[in-house]
Every structure is written in structure tokens, then in C-alpha cells.
């Protein structure tokens, strides 16, 4: 836990890396919902591409998902995106400072980031990403409508963060 906090402190002390983490988190959050419902967004984009209209489409999507699952599901996907951004930004920071590319955080970070995509739900029944993986009905079949996948992804990303913190300590960066 201490390693995670140290890594987060290092990120906060480096505003550009913090900004990078937030930008990546925002993009991941968008991508998680868009890839789950390309058809919904394609329909919307063919109607209008105005920024205000697209914001309404996206916020409506979040509302739909929170109605169909729960607000906790949307918040969990947000947390996955944030942790994904922090992990990727800290990985860049570590590579920039230590010139070492290989680390133990790679696999859990990647699995966590990909898991976040599966945990997000869509605005139409049966077209979710998880349906394409062979699960007819998608997240509706899970007792917590995908929250369990997001929680697993959060666990993986926290372990990846621990490994990054540990390696930064080992390299004397913290």
C-alpha cells in the first residue's frame, strides 16, 4: 500500500505526468463506453456531429447505463479509467527516468485496462462488447451487471501500480 501511495505522490509532484494521467483516463473512459456501443454512436454521429449534441449523446448513455445497472457500475468504470491513466503515465515516467522498459506491472496493467472495456455497458440490449465474446445477453447475465468485472480490473490495476511504485523505489526515484 505504501508503494502505491509513494507512486501517487510522485505523480502529483510532476504536474505534466499528472496531466498525462488525467488525459489518458478521460480518453479511456470515453473509449470504454464507445467501443461497447458503436452502433449507438454511429447512429448519433450520422445525425449530427455538433459538440453539444455529442455531449448529450454521451451523457445520455451514462444515464442509461446507470439506470440499467447502477451508478456504482459507471463509477467503477470511471475508477478503472483513472487507474489506467495513472498506471500508463507512471510507466512513461519510469521509462523516462530509468530507461528500463520491462517491468512486472505490464501484464496486470494491460489486463486491467482491457477489463475496463468489458465492464462498461451499452445503450442497447445484445450489442455489448461482451456479447461478441460469446456471451449472449452480455452483462445482463452477471448478478451485478458487469460491476464484478470492473472490480477485478481495479484489483489488477492496483497491483500494477504497486509494482510500478516498487520498481521506482528500487531505482531510487522515490
Amino acid at each position, binding site marked *: 500500500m505504501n508503494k502505491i501511495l509513494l507512486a501517487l505522490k510522485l505523480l502529483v509532484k510532476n504536474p505534466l505526468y499528472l496531466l498525462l494521467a488525467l*488525459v489518458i483516463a478521460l480518453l479511456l473512459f470515453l473509449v470504454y463506453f464507445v467501443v461497447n456501443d458503436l452502433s449507438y454512436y454511429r447512429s*448519433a454521429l450520422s445525425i449530427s456531429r455538433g459538440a453539444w449534441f455529442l455531449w448529450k449523446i454521451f451523457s445520455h448513455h451514462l444515464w442509461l447505463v446507470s439506470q440499467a445497472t447502477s451508478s456504482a457500475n459507471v463509477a467503477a468504470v470511471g475508477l478503472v479509467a483513472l487507474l489506467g491513466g495513472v498506471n500508463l503515465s507512471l510507466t512513461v515516467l519510469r521509462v523516462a527516468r530509468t530507461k528500463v522498459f520491462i517491468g512486472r506491472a505490464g501484464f496486470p496493467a494491460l489486463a486491467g485496462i482491457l477489463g475496463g472495456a468489458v465492464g462498461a455497458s451499452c445503450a442497447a*440490449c*445484445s*450489442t455489448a462488447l461482451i456479447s461478441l465474446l460469446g456471451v*449472449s445477453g452480455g452483462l*445482463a447475465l452477471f448478478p451485478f451487471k458487469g460491476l464484478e468485472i470492473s472490480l477485478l480490473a481495479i484489483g489488477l490495476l492496483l497491483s500494477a501500480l504497486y509494482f510500478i511504485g516498487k520498481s521506482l523505489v528500487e531505482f531510487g526515484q522515490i
Partner: protein
Amino acid sequence: MAFKKPKFKFDWRKYQSLYLPASILLGGLVIALAIIFTGGLNFSGNSTNNPDLSTCDPDAEVPVSVDNDAVLGDPNAPLTLIEFVDYECPFCKSFFEETLPQIKSQYIDTGKLKLVMRDFPLDFHDPAATDSAIAANCAREQGGDSTYFSYHDEIFTRTGANGQGLPSGGYEAAAKKLGLNTTSFNSCLKKDEIKSEVTADLDYLSQLIQDYPLPFSCDYGSPTIGTPAFFLGKSDSSGTIQARFISGAQPFASFSQLIDSLLSE
């Protein structure tokens, strides 16, 4: 006394450690701008499963029959919106709660649009999804289209969605509330021809996406459709409209933009 201008020298080397994150941010910004200015998210069939770009066109119109299904609004309205509904789909329920009342007050009640409701019960929501579709059709058998839509409202108000269905005795209670003869209603629920009406809609839609895959094949390489699925077009006396596909429980803004543009043509 002469003022000596201080010499300012920017030393790039001091900021060397920031090059990498700055480059990534800049790269991300360039990609984002490229997506925005080159036509948005256009994944036009670039799937490896479906390299043929000609099989994807989200704007393609498809001929969709209104069949003999329930109609809400003026039968002579210039525009027709067909909804393929699954009564157990939570997004159909959200559409009913949030968007349909706005469409109804602004376009259906004003005679600009009629809504045709067709059935699309998804197998993973069964048996509740098919049971609800059958019950709504039985309500229609007794009281016509307006009763169908009153019953439609009752189902969405009472269902737990995602296949949970109505509480025990819920279908009969809804029928009783609308003043229907519950004995006839209950016997109707067992009729094969009502069930056939529901499965006919399902078969029709499956065939439609095979025959006209253009708007349904863009995302995953093969024709895919979910609920709620909408088709909007100009009304036609033949009973088949040339319609544009609208995917999912879009907000009112999506429907109003399309409806307004069709009305102004």
C-alpha cells in the same frame, strides 16, 4: 543610469525529462483533432472479418413493413416511427420513461408522427419477454390499439426488466386495471396465433437484417441488431416505409433532429 536589459536564455536541456510526456500529450491531441476533422468515428466496415466497405452504410434506407401492428397516433401522420421492442430490455424501459413522452407530446399528439410497435423479444430475456409481448397483443385483441399502448405502459411500469418480468399475477392485474375481461384475457395468453404474431415479428427482423445488411453491418462485421431498434421514414400507403435505422435508446435530441429534417423535406 543606464538600464541593463537582463539576458534571457531558454535552456531546453533543463526540460529534457518532459519531452516524453509532452510528446505523448501532443500526439494524443493530434490524433483527437484528426478524428474530429476527418469525419469523426468512421469505422466503415474496416473489420478484418468484413473488409468489403460496400457492406456498411449507416445512412442506408431499408424497406420496413408496419405489418398489422399497433399504431399510436394519427394513422395519416406524414412520418412513421417503427419500434422493435423487448419488454424486458432495460433500455427499452428507459426509452419509455424518458424519451417517448417527449416524442409523444411534440410529434405524435400533434399529428406529425405515428408510432408502430413491433415485437422483438430477445431469447435471453425469455420467457418474460415473450410473455409480455403476448400479453400486450391480447390486450389489443380486446380493446384495440389504444388499449395495446395502455397495456404497454403498464408492462414497463411494472416490470423489473432484464428477464425478471412482472410479479406473479401482474399480467392479469394490469388487464383488470384497464377494465379488460380477465377470463378472455387469460385464455388469449394461451392462443397459438398470438404467439405466432410475436414470433413473426422476430422472424421478419432477422430476415430484414440479412436481406438489407447495409446499416446493420458497420460495427462488428456481421449484421447485428439490439433493442430498442427504430426505423423512421415517411409514411406510405403501401404499408412499407423507406426507413432509416436508429440504434439503441437514443435521447430525444436524436429523434427530434431526424424528424424535423424529414418534416422539412
